[in-house]
């Protein structure tokens, strides 16, 4: 621990107003040799303009097929303390809520068994414990479970579900995202820890169409809250926004994608039949407007990053479901299970569900899982006349 590492390049990144990850690594490096070698290797990367990690290998804890990402330095002689530097993915509590207490306990565990460095949080949602050796994995795991935490997902498995804070803090949440997330996570424990799918499978839950966990862009199943009835509207508060300087015509009415609003300077009229629940007017005037009372969610399917057929956004599978109780969760799981079964049977290796659907065709897919095709599933009907008519012969 004694000898100082020279890191002239990284040092530059300790300057400036934004909190510095370099300072974080240096702090850890004061007492942790893995962190110290990480600092050294990273400086080396900054010199060489290249990463110094070898292709990952599979490591893990007994009985689990995922939750740990194996990582090895390609300069083990120079940086022996990161020759093994695996990350542990720890399933975060829904909504990323913590108490000071529980955070301290987590820190204590990671002080004993790892680099003392973390990501709060990983892109999927896990708490990521950055860097440890193979022999520390089991003890880390056991201490985590002892305080009530479990590993997150990796590999061809259900990945750690995540959600926006929803009803815990947000007035717009159309269903209880945190409750559903907790329930889904528990329901799919086996599928989360023991990869057995063609590829990864992510669930993300947002309470309203603002989609604060970006579920539509990066979840195999995106559950996005919405409503069916009229927007709740307090005319007086609209007038207050107007008085306070909001240009309701220009900034609200003209931005309405449903083109269903009218503001006469005193009264805001909404033709709710044509409202597409985009949230804009509500976002702009939170005190005056709020989602209707008949709330639920739309279920979308299939988003993913580009590899390999190009990135996809999730698309509508079920336009609206009520999600008021556990009964309704079970109905959802039935749909998900039918999808997963089909995909496990017919999906190719490393083919995400979104790519699978595009390959077999949305209509065939919908039919195979026992749903009816509905116009909500498409942005528009086909424009090419290449129709596979099926007629009795």
């Amino acid at each position, binding site marked *: 621990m004694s000898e100082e590492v020279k890191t002239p390049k990284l040092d530059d990144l300790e300057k*400036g107003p934004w*909190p510095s*990850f370099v300072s974080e690594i240096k702090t850890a490096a004061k007492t942790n040799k893995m962190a110290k070698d990480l600092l050294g290797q990273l400086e080396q990367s900054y010199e060489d303009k*290249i990463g110094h*990690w070898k292709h990952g290998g599979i490591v893990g804890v007994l009985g689990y097929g995922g939750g740990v990402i194996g990582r090895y330095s390609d300069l083990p002689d120079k940086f022996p303390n990161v020759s093994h530097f695996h990350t542990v993915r720890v399933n975060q509590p829904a909504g990323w809520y913590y108490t000071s207490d529980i955070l301290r306990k987590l820190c204590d565990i990671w002080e004993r068994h790892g680099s003392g460095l973390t990501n709060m949080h990983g892109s999927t949602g896990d708490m990521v414990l950055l860097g440890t050796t193979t022999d520390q994995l089991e003890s880390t795991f056991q201490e985590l479970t002892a305080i009530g935490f*479990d590993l997150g997902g990796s590999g061809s498995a259900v990945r750690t579900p995540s959600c926006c804070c929803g*009803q815990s803090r947000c007035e717009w949440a159309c269903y209880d995202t945190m409750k559903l997330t907790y329930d889904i996570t528990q329901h799919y424990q086996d599928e989360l820890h023991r990869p057995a799918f063609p590829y990864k499978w992510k669930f993300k839950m947002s309470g309203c169409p603002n989609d604060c966990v970006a579920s539509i862009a990066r979840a195999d199943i995106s559950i996005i809250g919405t409503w069916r009835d009229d927007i709740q509207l307090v005319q007086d508060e609209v007038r207050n926004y107007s008085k306070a300087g909001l240009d309701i015509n220009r900034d609200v009415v003209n931005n309405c994608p449903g083109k269903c609003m009218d503001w006469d300077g005193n009264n805001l009229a909404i033709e709710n039949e044509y409202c597409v629940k985009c949230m804009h007017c509500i976002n702009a005037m939170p005190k005056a407007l709020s989602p209707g009372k008949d709330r639920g969610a739309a279920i979308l399917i299939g988003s993913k990053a580009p590899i390999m057929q190009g990135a996809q956004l999730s698309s509508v599978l079920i336009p609206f479901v009520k999600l008021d109780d556990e009964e309704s969760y079970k109905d959802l799981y039935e749909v998900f299970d039918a999808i997963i079964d089909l995909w496990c049977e017919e999906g190719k290796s490393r083919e995400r569900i979104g790519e699978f659907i595009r390959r077999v065709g949305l209509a065939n897919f919908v039919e195979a899982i026992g749903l009816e095709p509905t116009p909500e599933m498409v942005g528009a009907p086909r424009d090419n006349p290449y129709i596979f008519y099926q007629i009795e012969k």
Partner: protein
Amino acid sequence: MSETVKKRITDIGPPHYEKFLPPVIKANYGKWKYHEILQPGVMVHVSETNAKLFTVRAASPRLLSIDKIRKFADIADKFSDGFLRFTSRNNVEFLMTDETKIPPLIEDLRSIGHPVGGIGPAISNIVHTQGWVHCHSAATDASGVVKAIMDELIDDFTSMSLPGKLRIAFACCLNMCGAVHCSDIALLGVHRKLPEINHDMLPKTCEIPTLSASCPTAAIRPVTIDGKQTVEVLEEKCMFCANCFTVCPSMKLNNSEFDGLSIWVGGKVSNARTEPRFSKLAIPYLPNNPPRWPEAVEAVKNIVDVWKKNARNFERMGEWIDRIGWPKFFKLTDIPFQKEHIDDFKHAGLTYKTSTHLTQS
């Protein structure tokens, strides 16, 4: 071994979130009525019962030492009854009921280097990935570029003078772990050299059919070299995606000279006003120039400035470009338009301009 074997606990999932909720939330769960932004980084949610929850949001580099987390815990104890949370963009939020504690909290956060902001029409934290800190695939570092950019854009984090929200994301390779593909501005690490094939190792470490199948453009062909079963890459078909490397360590894409990053603009996720959409290519390549990637920082700053100056209220980056058109975007930002901008992948034909809606100047 001890006599009574301690039962190994598995499959418990995460702790129930309720354990970590402040009382005000438990009492008002699902009853929030509206919110107001009180100042940059500070908002209040008011419930049907008139209860109030104050949130103070502070910046985070995401990569945190346990030392820093403990400091957050101390601050939470001091100001927010020990309650805090992290956001979907990796900021940290302190959840309070006592409004008077807000200024000293902000002061404490500042003193440990964590500015408060990111709420409302502001830039929030940059969602990012591992980079050279932990990933084998990285074509660039993540944390370093993010730090350099946020140092430059800090004023737009701590104030609220943007036309709308500005979401920047960063991913260090085409796997796009940051899901950058729907961001107002996305930075994406790119390779530009053919895979270096390790013909000695390949036959031992990789399955050739799997490897061939991994290539989106079918650039990989089995071939025998010196009697060994290995593969070759058809130069004109390779677009450097590194998917081959993901399935086979003997196909190295990382390259100190030619790796770098690309910049994408105009994506969004929310359904507010317009539908969610992908980001589109703005700058095909900028070099890796650590520690501060000045070219990338400058490019982002320029795009943000031009948007800020020209966009109307509520116009996210992509909505602004919708209105003014891509030709104007390139003109105003002074970014050269090149061959690389024109799509040539699967749906390329649908990206061509099939109307005369052109600003013509």
